Protein backbone atom coordinates (compact mmCIF):
# COMPACT_ATOMS: atom_id res chain seq x y z
CA UNK A 1 0.00 0.00 0.00
CA UNK A 2 1.31 3.36 -1.12
CA UNK A 3 0.54 5.09 2.19
CA UNK A 4 2.73 2.67 4.12
CA UNK A 5 5.60 3.23 1.72
CA UNK A 6 5.32 6.95 2.48
CA UNK A 7 5.84 6.25 6.18
CA UNK A 8 2.27 6.41 7.49
CA UNK A 9 2.20 3.94 10.34
CA UNK A 10 -0.90 4.64 12.42
CA UNK A 11 -4.47 4.45 11.15
CA UNK A 12 -7.77 5.31 12.78
CA UNK A 13 -11.24 6.23 11.59
CA UNK A 14 -14.83 5.23 11.01
CA UNK A 15 -15.65 2.99 8.02
CA UNK A 16 -17.39 3.77 4.76
CA UNK A 17 -18.22 1.16 2.14
CA UNK A 18 -15.88 3.02 -0.25
CA UNK A 19 -13.08 2.59 2.32
CA UNK A 20 -14.14 -0.90 3.34
CA UNK A 21 -11.38 -2.84 1.59
CA UNK A 22 -8.68 -0.47 2.82
CA UNK A 23 -9.87 -0.74 6.42
CA UNK A 24 -10.18 -4.52 6.19
CA UNK A 25 -6.62 -4.67 4.90
CA UNK A 26 -5.36 -2.42 7.73
CA UNK A 27 -7.27 -4.31 10.41
CA UNK A 28 -5.93 -7.67 9.27
CA UNK A 29 -2.32 -6.57 8.96
CA UNK A 30 -0.06 -6.92 11.96
CA UNK A 31 2.43 -4.42 10.54
CA UNK A 32 0.55 -1.36 11.75
CA UNK A 33 -2.26 -0.37 14.03
CA UNK A 34 -5.81 0.46 12.98
CA UNK A 35 -7.90 1.96 15.77
CA UNK A 36 -11.65 1.75 15.15
CA UNK A 37 -12.99 5.03 16.57
CA UNK A 38 -16.58 5.52 17.70
CA UNK A 39 -16.89 8.81 15.83
CA UNK A 40 -14.80 10.81 13.41
CA UNK A 41 -13.90 13.58 15.86
CA UNK A 42 -12.61 10.91 18.24
CA UNK A 43 -10.45 9.54 15.42
CA UNK A 44 -8.94 13.00 14.94
CA UNK A 45 -8.20 13.20 18.68
CA UNK A 46 -6.55 9.78 18.64
CA UNK A 47 -4.51 10.76 15.58
CA UNK A 48 -3.34 13.96 17.30
CA UNK A 49 -2.17 11.98 20.33
CA UNK A 50 -0.42 9.41 18.15
CA UNK A 51 1.29 12.17 16.16
CA UNK A 52 2.64 13.71 19.36
CA UNK A 53 3.92 10.25 20.24
CA UNK A 54 5.97 10.11 17.05
CA UNK A 55 3.59 8.34 14.66
CA UNK A 56 2.53 9.43 11.18
CA UNK A 57 -1.23 9.04 11.42
CA UNK A 58 -3.98 8.73 8.83
CA UNK A 59 -7.68 9.29 9.59
CA UNK A 60 -10.17 7.49 7.34
CA UNK A 61 -13.79 8.56 7.20
CA UNK A 62 -16.89 8.95 5.07
CA UNK A 63 -17.57 12.55 4.04
CA UNK A 64 -20.66 12.54 6.28
CA UNK A 65 -18.15 12.35 9.13
CA UNK A 66 -16.60 15.67 8.15
CA UNK A 67 -19.61 17.27 9.80
CA UNK A 68 -18.79 15.41 13.01
CA UNK A 69 -15.21 16.62 12.70
CA UNK A 70 -15.73 20.36 12.41
CA UNK A 71 -14.84 21.37 15.99
CA UNK A 72 -11.91 18.94 16.07
CA UNK A 73 -10.57 20.34 12.80
CA UNK A 74 -10.90 24.00 13.70
CA UNK A 75 -10.10 24.07 17.41
CA UNK A 76 -7.56 21.24 17.55
CA UNK A 77 -5.98 20.10 14.27
CA UNK A 78 -5.80 23.51 12.55
CA UNK A 79 -5.29 25.53 15.76
CA UNK A 80 -2.25 23.54 16.94
CA UNK A 81 -1.07 22.84 13.37
CA UNK A 82 -1.17 19.06 13.36
CA UNK A 83 -0.13 17.56 9.99
CA UNK A 84 -2.65 14.75 9.79
CA UNK A 85 -3.61 13.01 6.57
CA UNK A 86 -7.36 12.60 6.08
CA UNK A 87 -8.70 10.05 3.61
CA UNK A 88 -12.32 11.00 3.00
CA UNK A 89 -14.73 9.06 0.80
CA UNK A 90 -16.90 11.05 -1.58
CA UNK A 91 -20.42 9.77 -1.15
CA UNK A 92 -22.93 11.77 -3.18
CA UNK A 93 -20.43 12.30 -6.02
CA UNK A 94 -22.18 13.86 -9.05
CA UNK A 95 -25.46 13.77 -7.14
CA UNK A 96 -25.84 10.04 -7.71
CA UNK A 97 -26.24 8.33 -4.36
CA UNK A 98 -28.69 7.69 -1.52
CA UNK A 99 -30.52 10.86 -0.46
CA UNK A 100 -28.68 11.24 2.85
CA UNK A 101 -25.39 11.69 0.98
CA UNK A 102 -26.42 14.30 -1.57
CA UNK A 103 -25.95 17.53 0.39
CA UNK A 104 -22.59 16.70 1.93
CA UNK A 105 -21.54 15.30 -1.44
CA UNK A 106 -22.38 18.66 -2.99
CA UNK A 107 -20.81 20.92 -0.35
CA UNK A 108 -17.82 18.87 0.81
CA UNK A 109 -15.14 20.51 -1.34
CA UNK A 110 -16.40 24.01 -0.51
CA UNK A 111 -16.47 23.09 3.14
CA UNK A 112 -12.79 22.01 3.08
CA UNK A 113 -11.85 25.08 1.03
CA UNK A 114 -13.47 27.46 3.53
CA UNK A 115 -11.41 25.86 6.29
CA UNK A 116 -8.23 26.15 4.21
CA UNK A 117 -7.58 22.41 4.29
CA UNK A 118 -5.43 21.44 1.26
CA UNK A 119 -7.50 18.92 -0.66
CA UNK A 120 -6.75 16.51 -3.52
CA UNK A 121 -9.44 14.51 -5.32
CA UNK A 122 -7.64 11.25 -6.00
CA UNK A 123 -7.33 9.88 -9.56
CA UNK A 124 -5.97 6.42 -10.30
CA UNK A 125 -3.58 7.66 -13.02
CA UNK A 126 -1.80 10.24 -10.82
CA UNK A 127 -2.30 8.65 -7.43
CA UNK A 128 1.36 8.35 -6.57
CA UNK A 129 2.15 12.00 -7.37
CA UNK A 130 -0.87 13.13 -5.35
CA UNK A 131 0.21 11.20 -2.29
CA UNK A 132 3.86 12.23 -2.53
CA UNK A 133 2.77 15.85 -2.91
CA UNK A 134 0.50 15.52 0.13
CA UNK A 135 3.39 14.18 2.20
CA UNK A 136 5.38 17.28 1.23
CA UNK A 137 2.55 19.65 2.21
CA UNK A 138 2.07 17.88 5.56
CA UNK A 139 5.77 18.15 6.36
CA UNK A 140 6.34 21.69 5.12
CA UNK A 141 3.16 23.45 6.16
CA UNK A 142 2.15 21.47 9.26
CA UNK A 143 -1.50 21.44 8.27
CA UNK A 144 -3.94 18.58 7.68
CA UNK A 145 -4.37 17.40 4.09
CA UNK A 146 -7.56 15.79 2.78
CA UNK A 147 -7.44 13.10 0.09
CA UNK A 148 -10.86 12.58 -1.44
CA UNK A 149 -11.62 9.06 -2.58
CA UNK A 150 -14.35 8.29 -5.09
CA UNK A 151 -15.69 4.78 -5.41
CA UNK A 152 -13.55 2.60 -7.67
CA UNK A 153 -10.39 4.75 -7.70
CA UNK A 154 -8.54 2.47 -5.26
CA UNK A 155 -9.32 -1.17 -4.59
Amino acid at each position, binding site marked *: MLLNECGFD*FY*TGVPCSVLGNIINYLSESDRF*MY*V*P*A*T*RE*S*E*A*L*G*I*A*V*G*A*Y*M*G*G*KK*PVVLMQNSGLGNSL*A*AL*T*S*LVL*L*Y*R*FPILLVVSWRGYLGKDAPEHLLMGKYMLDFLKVMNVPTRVLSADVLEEQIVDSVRVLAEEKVPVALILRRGVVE
Partner: protein
Amino acid sequence: MRRYDAVKAIVDCLDDEFIVACNGLISRELFSVKDRTRNFYMLGSMGLSSAIGLGAALARPDKKIVVLDGDGNMLMALGILATVGVFLPKNFVEIVLDNECYESTGGQDSASPVTKFDAISSSCGFRNSGFVDSLDDLKKMLTVFLNSDGPSFIHVKVDRGRVSVPRVSISPVEIKNRFMRELES
Protein backbone atom coordinates in the same frame (compact mmCIF):
# COMPACT_ATOMS: atom_id res chain seq x y z
CA MET B 1 -13.46 18.87 47.95
CA ARG B 2 -12.68 21.77 45.67
CA ARG B 3 -11.68 20.87 42.13
CA TYR B 4 -8.62 23.10 42.38
CA ASP B 5 -7.43 21.12 45.41
CA ALA B 6 -8.08 17.86 43.57
CA VAL B 7 -5.95 19.06 40.65
CA LYS B 8 -3.22 20.02 43.10
CA ALA B 9 -3.39 16.64 44.84
CA ILE B 10 -3.14 14.84 41.48
CA VAL B 11 -0.12 16.87 40.40
CA ASP B 12 1.52 16.16 43.78
CA CYS B 13 1.15 12.40 43.15
CA LEU B 14 2.75 12.61 39.71
CA ASP B 15 6.39 12.45 38.77
CA ASP B 16 7.34 12.10 35.10
CA GLU B 17 3.87 11.20 33.81
CA PHE B 18 2.26 13.09 30.94
CA ILE B 19 -1.02 14.94 31.46
CA VAL B 20 -3.64 15.69 28.81
CA ALA B 21 -6.06 18.19 30.35
CA CYS B 22 -9.51 18.95 28.94
CA ASN B 23 -10.63 22.39 27.84
CA GLY B 24 -12.03 25.01 30.17
CA LEU B 25 -11.25 25.52 33.84
CA ILE B 26 -9.48 22.17 34.30
CA SER B 27 -6.68 23.15 31.89
CA ARG B 28 -6.54 26.60 33.46
CA GLU B 29 -6.36 25.21 37.00
CA LEU B 30 -3.65 22.74 36.02
CA PHE B 31 -1.70 25.58 34.39
CA SER B 32 -2.09 27.62 37.57
CA VAL B 33 -1.22 24.76 39.98
CA LYS B 34 1.90 23.71 38.07
CA ASP B 35 2.81 24.38 34.48
CA ARG B 36 4.88 21.45 33.19
CA THR B 37 6.25 20.81 29.71
CA ARG B 38 4.59 17.40 30.06
CA ASN B 39 1.14 19.06 30.26
CA PHE B 40 -0.97 19.22 27.11
CA TYR B 41 -3.65 21.89 27.51
CA MET B 42 -6.55 21.18 25.17
CA LEU B 43 -7.95 24.66 24.53
CA GLY B 44 -10.95 23.74 22.37
CA SER B 45 -12.29 20.51 20.84
CA MET B 46 -14.39 19.61 23.86
CA GLY B 47 -14.73 15.87 24.40
CA LEU B 48 -11.42 14.87 22.82
CA SER B 49 -8.99 14.92 25.76
CA SER B 50 -9.33 11.18 26.37
CA ALA B 51 -8.95 10.46 22.63
CA ILE B 52 -5.72 12.50 22.53
CA GLY B 53 -4.52 10.65 25.63
CA LEU B 54 -5.37 7.28 24.09
CA GLY B 55 -3.50 8.10 20.87
CA ALA B 56 -0.42 9.13 22.82
CA ALA B 57 -0.64 6.05 25.05
CA LEU B 58 -0.85 3.72 22.03
CA ALA B 59 2.01 5.48 20.24
CA ARG B 60 4.27 5.45 23.31
CA PRO B 61 3.54 2.39 25.48
CA ASP B 62 6.63 3.20 27.52
CA LYS B 63 5.21 6.54 28.78
CA LYS B 64 2.39 6.91 31.28
CA ILE B 65 -0.45 9.16 30.10
CA VAL B 66 -2.91 10.70 32.56
CA VAL B 67 -6.06 12.36 31.20
CA LEU B 68 -7.61 15.07 33.38
CA ASP B 69 -11.22 15.34 32.32
CA GLY B 70 -14.44 16.93 33.50
CA ASP B 71 -17.91 15.43 33.57
CA GLY B 72 -18.98 17.52 30.57
CA ASN B 73 -16.06 16.30 28.47
CA MET B 74 -16.57 12.68 29.52
CA LEU B 75 -20.30 12.75 28.78
CA MET B 76 -19.57 14.10 25.31
CA ALA B 77 -17.19 11.22 24.63
CA LEU B 78 -18.40 8.10 26.41
CA GLY B 79 -17.63 6.16 23.22
CA ILE B 80 -13.89 6.55 23.80
CA LEU B 81 -14.14 4.24 26.81
CA ALA B 82 -15.19 1.44 24.44
CA THR B 83 -12.23 2.24 22.18
CA VAL B 84 -9.86 2.11 25.17
CA GLY B 85 -11.44 -1.24 26.04
CA VAL B 86 -10.39 -2.68 22.67
CA PHE B 87 -6.69 -1.97 23.28
CA LEU B 88 -6.45 -1.85 27.10
CA PRO B 89 -3.25 0.23 27.17
CA LYS B 90 -1.42 -0.43 30.44
CA ASN B 91 -0.08 3.14 30.47
CA PHE B 92 -3.44 4.98 30.34
CA VAL B 93 -5.09 6.65 33.35
CA GLU B 94 -8.34 8.60 33.04
CA ILE B 95 -9.45 10.90 35.88
CA VAL B 96 -12.88 12.54 35.69
CA LEU B 97 -13.38 15.54 37.98
CA ASP B 98 -17.15 15.58 38.27
CA ASN B 99 -18.87 18.65 39.68
CA GLU B 100 -22.18 17.85 37.96
CA CYS B 101 -22.12 21.06 35.95
CA TYR B 102 -20.52 23.04 33.13
CA GLU B 103 -18.54 25.33 35.42
CA SER B 104 -16.53 26.98 32.63
CA THR B 105 -19.68 28.38 31.04
CA GLY B 106 -21.36 29.49 34.25
CA GLY B 107 -22.37 26.33 36.10
CA GLN B 108 -25.26 24.95 34.03
CA ASP B 109 -26.30 21.46 35.19
CA SER B 110 -24.80 18.47 33.41
CA ALA B 111 -26.32 14.99 33.13
CA SER B 112 -23.80 13.43 35.51
CA PRO B 113 -25.55 13.27 38.94
CA VAL B 114 -26.76 9.72 38.34
CA THR B 115 -23.95 8.65 36.00
CA LYS B 116 -21.57 6.05 37.43
CA PHE B 117 -18.56 6.80 35.23
CA ASP B 118 -16.41 4.28 37.09
CA ALA B 119 -18.95 1.53 36.42
CA ILE B 120 -19.09 2.43 32.73
CA SER B 121 -15.30 2.25 32.46
CA SER B 122 -15.30 -1.07 34.27
CA SER B 123 -17.94 -2.41 31.85
CA CYS B 124 -15.69 -1.35 28.98
CA GLY B 125 -12.87 -3.47 30.33
CA PHE B 126 -10.68 -1.02 32.29
CA ARG B 127 -8.47 -3.04 34.65
CA ASN B 128 -8.90 -0.60 37.56
CA SER B 129 -11.93 1.61 38.18
CA GLY B 130 -12.85 3.49 41.32
CA PHE B 131 -14.89 6.32 42.84
CA VAL B 132 -13.59 8.81 45.41
CA ASP B 133 -14.99 11.92 47.07
CA SER B 134 -12.19 12.99 49.40
CA LEU B 135 -8.65 14.25 48.82
CA ASP B 136 -7.12 11.48 50.92
CA ASP B 137 -8.91 8.74 49.00
CA LEU B 138 -8.00 10.39 45.70
CA LYS B 139 -4.29 10.43 46.56
CA LYS B 140 -4.37 6.84 47.82
CA MET B 141 -6.23 5.48 44.79
CA LEU B 142 -4.13 7.41 42.27
CA THR B 143 -0.91 6.20 43.89
CA VAL B 144 -2.11 2.59 43.67
CA PHE B 145 -3.30 2.96 40.08
CA LEU B 146 -0.07 4.67 38.96
CA ASN B 147 1.80 1.62 40.19
CA SER B 148 -0.53 -0.90 38.54
CA ASP B 149 -1.10 -1.93 34.95
CA GLY B 150 -3.90 0.13 33.40
CA PRO B 151 -6.08 1.20 31.88
CA SER B 152 -7.26 2.83 35.08
CA PHE B 153 -10.17 5.13 35.77
CA ILE B 154 -10.96 7.37 38.75
CA HIS B 155 -14.32 9.08 39.10
CA VAL B 156 -13.77 12.01 41.47
CA LYS B 157 -16.79 13.86 42.86
CA VAL B 158 -15.87 17.50 43.48
CA ASP B 159 -17.76 20.60 44.65
CA ARG B 160 -19.22 23.12 42.31
CA GLY B 161 -17.50 26.48 42.24
CA ARG B 162 -14.34 28.00 40.87
CA VAL B 163 -11.26 29.79 42.03
CA SER B 164 -9.85 32.67 40.05
CA VAL B 165 -7.23 31.35 37.63
CA PRO B 166 -5.63 32.92 34.56
CA ARG B 167 -6.05 31.60 31.04
CA VAL B 168 -3.32 29.37 29.62
CA SER B 169 -0.84 31.90 28.24
CA ILE B 170 1.19 29.54 26.04
CA SER B 171 0.42 29.40 22.33
CA PRO B 172 -1.22 26.22 20.98
CA VAL B 173 1.78 25.46 18.76
CA GLU B 174 4.16 25.83 21.70
CA ILE B 175 1.95 23.59 23.88
CA LYS B 176 2.23 20.97 21.14
CA ASN B 177 5.96 21.37 20.50
CA ARG B 178 7.12 21.13 24.08
CA PHE B 179 4.83 18.17 24.83
CA MET B 180 6.17 16.39 21.74
CA ARG B 181 9.78 17.06 22.71
CA GLU B 182 9.13 15.50 26.11
CA LEU B 183 7.39 12.48 24.58
CA GLU B 184 10.32 11.97 22.19
CA SER B 185 12.87 11.89 24.98
